[in-house]
């Protein structure tokens, strides 16, 4: 187990270096951030001066060294809007986004998995038909359209809930509901097909032959083996969830990382955007690491596959 942990940790660090190199290559070698920062009409002198001020005229080896050193020292530049270190600005907004995404994932799992399990247990039954329809719609309707429909119904027509803002529990309902639709749809589809697959296994026929009731078979024999692919999918969904969270925050005026970053793009506050990309990537590397480790705890077969 220790050896597995160590290998996996080294792999995570390699990923981190790759991500850092990728973002460095994109911003410093392929693209030209100086061009993005200058006004639409600029003189060559302005270009040269700004390039010098930002340090983009130094040899790229030096730039790369400073970039990587900055990463280690948690120093990714200063925000031009807030005048504070970019990493701190991003981290201060992180709890809001994490709350929104975490809440949505929890709702998606708690609602989606039971529906999916029941749907897979009785294919073509009423739960199956409704569940699949909801899941199909949920995957075809982007978060901002769901959000707009929910606002139109609950804020404009019924005047039940606020159309935006953050802080009280009422403001949380619509954003979380909007965002939860994405993981919920995926969970329904996946739990449904996993259950159908397990239901076809010989050990289910055996359990039935032993005289167990439908409910007993479902709970003790079907759900557990069906859950492993669902966990994998859940961790993969987080990327989609983050994209959705940024969109949702924009629609509902939630002051999370997403809004911060989009404002930063508009105001050309590049260090904040860069810091957000790096912080986000580190978050995903940590999540992937934790997912793999929890697998290894659950499934001993994985621990012996360290070699690769």
């Amino acid at each position: 187990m220790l050896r597995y942990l160590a290998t996996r940790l080294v792999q995570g660090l390699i990923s981190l270096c790759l991500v850092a190199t990728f973002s460095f290559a994109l911003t410093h070698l392929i693209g030209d951030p100086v061009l993005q920062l200058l006004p639409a009409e600029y003189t060559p002198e302005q270009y040269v001066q700004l390039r010098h001020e930002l340090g983009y005229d130094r040899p790229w080896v030096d730039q790369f060294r400073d970039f990587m050193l900055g990463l280690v020292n948690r120093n990714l530049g200063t925000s031009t809007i807030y005048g504070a270190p970019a990493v701190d600005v991003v981290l201060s907004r992180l709890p809001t986004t994490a709350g929104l995404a975490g809440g949505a994932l929890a709702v998606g799992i708690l609602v989606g998995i039971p529906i999916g399990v029941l749907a897979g247990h009785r294919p073509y039954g009423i739960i199956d038909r409704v569940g699949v329809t909801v899941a199909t719609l949920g995957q075809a309707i982007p978060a901002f359209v769901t959000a707009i429909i929910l606002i139109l119904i609950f804020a404009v027509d019924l005047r039940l809930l606020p159309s935006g803002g953050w802080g009280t529990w009422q403001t949380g309902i619509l954003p979380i509901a909007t965002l939860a639709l994405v993981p919920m749809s995926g969970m329904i589809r996946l739990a449904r097909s996993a259950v159908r697959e397990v239901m076809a296994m010989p050990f289910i026929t055996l359990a039935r032959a032993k005289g167990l009731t439908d409910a007993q078979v479902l709970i003790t024999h079907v759900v557990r083996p069906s859950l492993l692919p669902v966990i994998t999918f859940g961790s993969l969904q987080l990327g989609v969830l983050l994209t959705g969270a940024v969109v949702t925050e924009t629609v509902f005026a939630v002051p999370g990382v997403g809004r911060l970053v989009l404002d930063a793009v508009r105001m050309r506050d590049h260090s904040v955007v860069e810091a957000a990309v790096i912080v986000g990537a580190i978050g995903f590397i940590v999540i992937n690491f934790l997912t793999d480790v929890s697998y290894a705890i659950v499934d001993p077969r994985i621990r012996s596959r360290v070699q690769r």
Partner: protein
Amino acid sequence: MPILAASVLVLVALGALLAPLLAREPLGAVDLSQTLVPPVWSSSGSWLHPLGTDQLGRDTLARLAYGGRVSLLVAVSSVFLASSIGTLVGLISGYFEGWIDVVAARIIEAQLSLPLILVALAIVIALGSSFQTVVLAIALSSWVPFARIVRSEVLVLKHHDFVDLAVVAGLGGPAIIRRHILPNVLPSVVVLASQNFGQAIIYEASLSYLSLGVQPPQVSWGFMIAQSRIYLASVPLLVLAPAVTLAVTALSANILCDLLRDRLDPTLTTLQ
């Protein structure tokens, strides 16, 4: 259902092709004497603007057609790019294994920690936002599944007799991959590509809703929704028209690809 879905896609494609004919004015032309004209089914509407006009007097139907152009083009090119990158990586790492496979595995893991929104942000600060950068962002965040599925199929395929025979016949690695392995993995790639198509349409709309997508005068459904959002309570059609078009198009694409998968994937049909 499949026929309905297919006709929706054909309709959007026709609109995209014929957009210049549908529009009376060039794309982005503003007519402030014709702002917020109601649609044809309201009492003061006319067939001149079947779906009315927006706050700047631009015809909604024409803009929907132009938006379909961007949606379909971005979806087709990004899915093509993603499947090409993924297939190439999968073929090479699966066939040769060894160190090249280890490197590919690390690149894939690094890519998995950069979901769409992070890639898009990184690209936008480096290159600005345009048609090409949207395609690049979507392709970069969706090639991994292609690489994984192709790699796992190649690992099985390369132990078949016909590969050994090709080696005996004196063919080199690249020739075997191109002539004997690639044709065998293409069906899976096509199924996966069709599944990514609807997703790519939604990704494009989301990015342009966040103004990280194509820039004016080019128009996209997501951008139209973002622009008319303040009119949601007073003129809901301005928001609903692009929103419904977008949802119905993505839904149709998903329905058709489910059908394609059920037809082409033998493991599913045996289960039923």
